[in-house]
């Protein structure tokens, strides 16, 4: 009996050490904040009422869904559109992520991170639009699948660059495509 009582502090110390080791392992391996809660797609369109050939080569045609979205816009209206670039990035639970739709240029950059939980298929973001090294705009939209955010951006080659931010999917939800 006396031996058991003498060994109790050692047993207690061992239990505490093992618990602390387990919690530290959990902190290193399972960063919940780095988990993806969805996918965000940022596209850059070129819109012009003039000759679309001014934009040069390398631009691609829009998909039917993109055309459908652009036709429904009330303020942003052009006769011709082309896709300049696009980038899809994961929406991380508590970390900022960047989309760089123009692969060879930093003229258009979008930073984003959730500012709240995913509620009813919607998520509120902290979204920033950067042009090169300059922050142009900060917004806090609530994005949901099927309703993109369009930003009429800077002029380029006789037209305007249009940035489309669309929530493509949420974890546990059906994809937009």
């Amino acid at each position, binding site marked *: 009996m006396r031996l058991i009582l003498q060994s109790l502090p050692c047993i207690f110390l061992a239990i505490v050490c093992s618990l602390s080791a387990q919690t530290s392992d959990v902190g290193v391996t399972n960063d919940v904040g780095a988990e993806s809660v969805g996918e965000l797609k940022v596209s*850059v369109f070129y819109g012009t009422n003039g000759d679309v050939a001014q*934009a*040069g*080569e*390398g*631009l*691609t045609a829009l998909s039917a869904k993109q055309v459908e*979205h652009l036709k*429904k*816009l*009330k*303020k*942003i209206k052009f006769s011709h559109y082309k*896709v*300049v*670039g*696009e980038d899809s990035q994961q929406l991380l639970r508590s970390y900022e992520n*960047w989309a*760089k*739709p*123009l*692969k*060879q*240029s*930093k*003229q*258009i*950059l979008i930073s984003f991170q959730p500012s709240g939980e995913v509620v*009813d*298929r*919607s998520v*509120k973001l902290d979204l920033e639009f950067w*042009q090169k*090294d*300059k*922050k*142009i*705009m*900060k*917004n*806090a*939209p*609530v*994005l*949901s699948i*099927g*309703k*993109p*955010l*369009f*930003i*009429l*951006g*800077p*002029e*380029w*080659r006789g037209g305007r*660059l249009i940035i489309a931010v669309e929530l493509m999917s949420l974890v546990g939800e059906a994809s937009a495509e």
Partner: protein
Amino acid sequence: MNKPSEKTLRLWLEGELEGDRKQEVESWAETNPEELDAEFKCDIGWDALNDECFASMPASEEPPYPEFFNHKILQTIQEENENALESVKGQELEHASSPGLWQKLRWMLAPAAVAAVAAFYAGSVLSNSSNTLADSKSGVTNNSVYLPNSGIVAAVTESSDATEIVLSGLTPVSDELDIAMSYSNDVFPALIPANYAERSRDERIFNIVSDPEPETYMLTKSVRDAIYYY
């Protein structure tokens, strides 16, 4: 007492007598006024002297400093008026401290009106926010746009299909820059870093922020056409 000498009487009149001699002369003058008048030939009497004194005084005399005198009088009058006003105000305050029932209600009307307006405004805001929440289920809402740079203007348009933010005042992208997506290592292998595609996303993002001019990788459209021609 016998009649004092003429010299003693003159000293008494000039006020130079003292002690017992002064009392003796005064007691004699009181008991023998006729002899005193005869001695000094002063036959006009005390009443006549009194009248002569008043007659010699002016009927009115200007004060030595008339302006100062008038100023002090006006100051005194003003002080009296102010004291009177303060007493009147004090009486009014006493009345105000104990208002009647209608006065109490009148004072309560203003806060009640403010509360009613606030309640109406809060109700309208809550009503709008509920609509916003309903819309947010299918789109983008809460579009408060922050523009840190002056000269840039944003106009937000919300619809059921999309949200549009029209920015004006932005610096145009140079027409010389080819920003399209079709450039690849196959086209310009020497201009784009060989391991660009293999770089981790974090490294690429770091380069975006740290590299001052990544566009230097690219050629202008005219130079590119020249290379094709060549």
